């Protein structure tokens, strides 16, 4: 089997909240231009793992992490944290567009908040192409200057995706982006993912086995803070190599 190109590699990541160790020696290689699903029972450290990648984890008082994260081969600890985050976008569990910004501004939030001034034409162009990428352009074309929070929940979440990819990140982290949405909006976002992989690499945290099977090319299975299995989704779902994965897939854990 041919080796995929790797966009991000973690080596022996350990993470703590205060004295509680949450992640144990997590080493993973995330393929480029693919959707990698992160699965596992509730509380196993999925969120914590993705948050160590853009170092949001370390912002919680008392939280820390060790280990190496290589982004396209570069050790992110040698980079300014701000640059790491510009290259790793994130979409959160609940849609969280900035309530003080319009739809237009929300798409450009990454530029506005990092002090980058764009010429008007460039800005317009980024807004349009990005909103097209997330399939929102036709829906919000006439509402560009309304508050971002005036959109429906599903639209807000796609706006948040647009906000993340407008910065042209190498990798986008999705932390259960559909868990707060209705089934219709969920399937719209699921369909989006494969389009997005032509340009971006995606890590997609999900609770649902079905969802992981539907959207992902690769899957990482976490349990009690350990990465117990990693592989192509088809392979893992058909023939899990780890007993714990097998039990989980057959529904033995919540």
């Amino acid at each position: 089997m041919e080796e995929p190109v790797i966009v991000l590699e973690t080596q022996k990541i350990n993470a703590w909240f205060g004295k509680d160790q949450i992640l144990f020696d997590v080493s993973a290689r995330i393929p480029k231009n693919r959707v990698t699903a992160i699965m596992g029972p509730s509380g196993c450290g999925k969120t914590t793992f993705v948050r160590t990648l853009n170092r949001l984890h370390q912002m919680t008082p008392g939280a820390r992490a060790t280990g190496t994260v290589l982004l396209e081969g570069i050790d992110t600890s040698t980079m300014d944290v701000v640059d790491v985050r510009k290259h790793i976008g994130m979409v959160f569990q609940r849609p969280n567009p900035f309530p003080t910004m319009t739809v237009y501004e929300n798409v450009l939030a990454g530029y506005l908040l990092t002090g980058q001034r764009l010429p008007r034409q460039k800005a317009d162009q980024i807004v349009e192409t990005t909103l097209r990428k997330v399939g929102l352009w036709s829906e919000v074309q006439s509402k560009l200057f309304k508050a971002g929070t005036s959109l429906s929940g599903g639209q807000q979440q796609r706006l948040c995706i647009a906000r993340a990819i407008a910065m042209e990140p190498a990798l986008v982290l999705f932390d259960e982006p559909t868990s707060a949405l209705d089934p219709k909006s969920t399937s719209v976002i699921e369909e989006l993912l494969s389009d997005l992989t032509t340009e971006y690499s995606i890590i997609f945290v999900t609770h649902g086995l079905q969802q992981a099977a539907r959207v992902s090319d690769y899957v990482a299975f976490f349990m009690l803070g350990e990465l117990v299995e990693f592989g192509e989704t088809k392979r893992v779902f058909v023939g899990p190599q780890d007993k714990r994965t097998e039990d989980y897939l057959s529904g033995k854990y919540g």
Partner: protein
Amino acid sequence: MVTQPSRSDRRELVHERIFTAAGVTAAVALVTTIVLFLLELFIASRASRAAFGLPFLWRSEWNPVTEKFGALPMIVGTLVTGFGALLISTPFALGIAIFLADYADRKLAEPIKYLIGLLGGLPSVIFGLWGLFVLVPIVSKFEVWFGKLVGSEALVASGTTGVGLLAAILLLAIMILPFSASLILESLLVVPTELKEGALALGATKWDAIQNVELPYVQKSTVGALVLSLGRALGETMAVTMVIGNGMKMPTTLFDPANTLASAIANQFLEATSPVYVGSLIQLALILFVIAIIINIVARVILRRGVQQ
């Protein structure tokens, strides 16, 4: 991928530095303020300490003519008015808070809360004005009546002015009422309704539930609220100044004109000319400052504990 910092990056970095520096500066300035107050008041009052030393605290003579100063009458005046006001207003404050938390529905509670806020927001000098022209005449009538009742000629004769400790206590009681009521109400509102409903389900009357479930739950925060209110009362200046009568002697009855630490300063500071007199008044301010800081910190600690439980 790792790029040179661009112009906008550098601008952001400058913003970040300024921002951090401003935050730290403001925070440090706030803490320094307390030290600055202490130092400034301590230095400015040294003439008084040179003349009277520590006995200033318990000497009961305050005589601007002979320039002999002792703080005891003011300390007594402060404590009597402060505790007196607290004693009178606390039952009402509790009553109002309980009424709003447990008896009034939203339609009734909201306007009353608004009125409490209004009363609490009225400036001290306006309470003083009202006290001087409305309350003091009433107190004066009461004094005469009371003097006749107990057959004290002195009271009938001297008490007709109405200004004095009693007027100050009553006015202070009104002034701290909205403050303590809203603080107590705040703590009552966080009592979990399940607790009360549990008691009611067991057949307790409404008052049983309040007395046995709700009040014990907020005991600590109520004490904290009362200590805070006491701090307010002890430091309250203008209203007290206007109705307490600027008495220099140690008060012997509630009808006597007196002074609190605050009112003595407000009444006399502009007349004080000699360094010892000025220094003694500033010394009063220092005592008041220290009392206020201690009371406030104690109250906050009690309140925080109350919340944590």
